[in-house]
């Protein structure tokens, strides 16, 4: 019998006409790992919250939810709290206690468990998670990844049978996200805990999933095993979900007419095996890549882009718009420097992506460039002038958390502030609202917007001040793949049509590879490598896109995205 069963569920938020969930029916068996995919606002969070009575949203609902054979509403609260665990998106806000140990036992205290039992649980779970070093630490001192791990452990302490997760890794960097998924996989495989997870990190979640549920506009679009769903999407020619599939499958799809469901690759490993059976040649050259010499000399596209890159580098050296000279920055006197004699030149009209691991000083660098932090030594130069204590107005800074941008009660008031500050004409605002397609949001409170909408509103506010340079901290955090893609296109358009220089720091390599004209990598407070994105990422073995990892050393022309492969590859014959 199914552990969790949803039958004909409809749900409408108060004062809304359109239902948030419409006619949703599915069942989850005990021990299954189910991934919930779909755009932001498709009802993923609503569905997950309806499955957890304590935090169910208010609204009109019909249909039924059964847990373990009885209606969910009839389950006693204590059992509900114990059996159904929930992990939220934001790592900070779900922590209630001051110390890690206190956080772990919080749920058990709520259930009235005695200390002896709690000690035992703590010992078990801490061991399973390897949390010993964190146990006595204060929760606010932990990194985002550690916090989310503590949150997962705190839920697991209660020995849940089913775990609901609402985009748990959206705020984490790729390495922490991988750790988190590894832990989820272990919990699922070793402890048999049922998992239902809404997630945008497709490369990580698809290989783990037993089943995938795809939601769109509150309706179930596809339910099934990952390969079945992908195969069905391909045969139906449904392009709307293409951004939600793992890159390996998309790559496969572009070169296969008749998809054999069993052979659809999901992981890098599977895609490499599939590629090994193919003979791929470069379209323009028409020569076989199986020729071993070819990999050694740069192919034509690379050569052309490298040439372009060199010309730009010359221009940048001569007239940088923004420059950091030997910048050194510490947050506290005795801490090691976050930025260590860092020098960087940014040319006019560039799209520069700064990538790098957690804690390498990316965010600090972008704040320093914006003139918001004053370095202890070294200088920042903007348009040939030294930046003093006040941040230059012609530099726009889009923070990691766009909510921090709003002091005003409405979006409109925020626009007004920007207009007044720089004396821009309201006609420009109209233009931007149309261009970004956010005219309908002006009367709303900023906190009521989705992450993607919020980012666009902040971007409009910044653009109204007519900046020369736009600095963006983690532009893709919390965005769904489709919104991310549109945001990337938008940045490109602004850059190409308005000549706006764009600098962003990101963990998202796919995004950097698609949007940037130059990439720089930070390590220990310094820029350790930089280059044209194509050459840069094809040169990296790990720090590259999924398709980059698939094609590296596979005896095919190295590409970074499925789209690029489509442009450049000619599949001569199927090896099988």
């Amino acid at each position, binding site marked *: 019998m199914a552990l969790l069963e949803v039958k004909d569920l409809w749900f409408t938020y108060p004062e809304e006409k359109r239902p948030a969930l419409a006619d949703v029916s599915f069942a989850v068996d005990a021990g299954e790992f189910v991934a919930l995919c779909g755009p932001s606002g498709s009802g993923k969070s609503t569905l997950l919250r309806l499955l957890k009575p304590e*935090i169910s949203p208010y609204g009109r609902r019909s249909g039924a939810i059964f847990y373990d054979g009885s209606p969910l509403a009839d389950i006693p*609260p204590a059992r509900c709290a114990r059996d159904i665990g929930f992990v939220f998106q*934001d790592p900070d806000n779900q922590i209630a*206690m001051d110390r890690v140990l206190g956080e772990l036992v919080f749920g058990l*205290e709520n259930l009235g468990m005695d200390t002896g039992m709690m000690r035992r649980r703590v010992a078990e779970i801490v061991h399973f998670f390897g949390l010993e070093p964190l146990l006595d630490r204060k929760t*606010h001192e932990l990194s985002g990844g550690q916090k989310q791990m503590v949150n997962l452990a705190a839920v697991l302490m209660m020995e849940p049978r089913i775990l609901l997760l609402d985009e748990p890794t959206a705020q984490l960097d790729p390495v922490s996200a991988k750790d988190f998924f590894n832990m989820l996989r272990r919990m699922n495989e070793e402890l048999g805990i049922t998992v239902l997870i809404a997630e945008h990190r497709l490369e990580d979640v698809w290989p783990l999933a037993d089943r995938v549920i795809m939601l769109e506009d509150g309706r179930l679009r596809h339910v099934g095993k990952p390969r079945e769903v992908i195969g069905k999407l391909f045969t139906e020619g449904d392009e709307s979900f293409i951004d939600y599939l793992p890159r390996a499958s998309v790559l496969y799809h572009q070169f296969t007419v008749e998809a054999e469901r069993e052979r659809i690759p999901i992981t890098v490993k599977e895609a490499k095996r599939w590629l090994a059976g193919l003979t791929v040649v470069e379209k323009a050259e028409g020569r076989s890549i199986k020729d071993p010499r070819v990999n050694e000399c740069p192919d034509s596209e690379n050569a052309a882009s490298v040439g372009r890159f060199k010309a730009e580098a010359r221009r940048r050296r001569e007239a940088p718009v923004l420059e950091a000279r030997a910048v050194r920055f510490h947050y506290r006197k005795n801490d090691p420097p976050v930025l260590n004699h860092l020098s960087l030149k940014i040319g006019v009209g560039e799209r520069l992506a700064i990538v790098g691991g957690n804690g390498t000083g990316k965010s600090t660098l972008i704040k320093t460039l914006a003139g918001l932090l004053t370095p202890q030594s070294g200088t920042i130069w903007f348009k040939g002038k030294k930046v003093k204590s006040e941040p230059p107005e012609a530099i726009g800074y889009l923070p990691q958390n766009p909510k921090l941008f709003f002091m005003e009660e409405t979006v409109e008031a925020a626009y007004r502030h920007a207009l007044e500050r720089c004396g821009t004409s309201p006609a420009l605002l109209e233009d931007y609202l149309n261009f970004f397609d956010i005219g309908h949001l002006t009367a709303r409170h900023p906190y009521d917007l989705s992450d993607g909408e919020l980012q666009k509103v902040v971007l409009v506010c910044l653009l109204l001040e007519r900046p020369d340079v736009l600095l963006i901290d983690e532009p893709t955090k919390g965005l769904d793949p489709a919104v991310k893609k549109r945001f990337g296109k938008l940045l490109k358009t602004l850059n190409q049509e308005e000549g706006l220089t764009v600098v962003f720091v990101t963990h998202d390599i796919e995004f950097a590879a698609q949007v940037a004209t130059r990439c720089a990598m930070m390590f220990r407070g310094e820029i350790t490598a930089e280059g044209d994105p194509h050459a840069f990422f094809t040169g990296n073995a790990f720090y590259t896109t999924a398709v980059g990892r698939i094609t590296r050393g596979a005896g095919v022309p190295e590409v970074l995205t499925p789209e690029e492969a489509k442009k450049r590859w000619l599949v001569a014959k199927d090896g099988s």
Partner: protein
Amino acid sequence: MNGGMNTFHPAVPFFFYAGGAVLIMVARHPVFLAAILLVLIGHSLVLDCGRTLRRWWGAIVLMSGFFLVITPLVNRRGTHILFYFNGRPVLEEAVYQGVMTALSLAALLVLFLNYNQVITPEKFLFLFGKLPQWALVATLAVRFVPELQRRLGDIQTVQRARGLSVTAGPLQARLKNGLALVQMLLTLSLEEALQTADSMKARGYGTGKRSQYNPYRFRPADRLALLFLAAVFGLALFGWRLGDLVLTLRPVLEPVFLHGREWFYLFVVGIYYVFPLFIEGREAWRWRSWK
């Protein structure tokens, strides 16, 4: 800090510091107070190599110095005139009084600094948060403070980029921005607190009677230490009742130097305050001999 006083159940160090404060307040004798202060400073040095003390040194000297100087100038009750200052007599009794006030103030401050290092807020809550609800509210508040600090810093940085500064510009604009900043901090915090509330509810908060995790065990060593401290404390109080901890100023000024039974009670009070140092020392000695 691990080891030393931290190996005990929180009740032991708490009793020590509470009793320590009482003895400082009842002892009115420069020699006793000086001895106590010296031992407490020694303990502070052992606790963190003098880091806290260095930070507070200025404040302690300033406050004690104030009483040291001001008491002889304003207190004119006594018979032994030392000299005249601005035409007013400065009395020997008043000088002793000033020395004692300064010493006891300094001793109390150092004791409190040490207390803060040993009795963390968690231990305090554990001891006095027998009402779980109260303890929970306090813990939530403790967690909230660094969150507020972090958010305020973030908001300030971002708003500076928008030209809204609280550190530069005309005072009126700064005030206006400051108020807006605080308002925004509250809105943002409430918004985020909703998520915390959800997370707490999801983990069964409010489903029934809460229990409290007890991270400390009361061991036989704790009982022994508590009994010992209580006995020494009782003896010292007895000495106070006998007047041996007090320098009599009026009607007849007692000699400052100790005599007779007072030596015994200095020893008793000394033992009380040396107790934590003895524990730390024993710990260090154990490590040395273990090697």
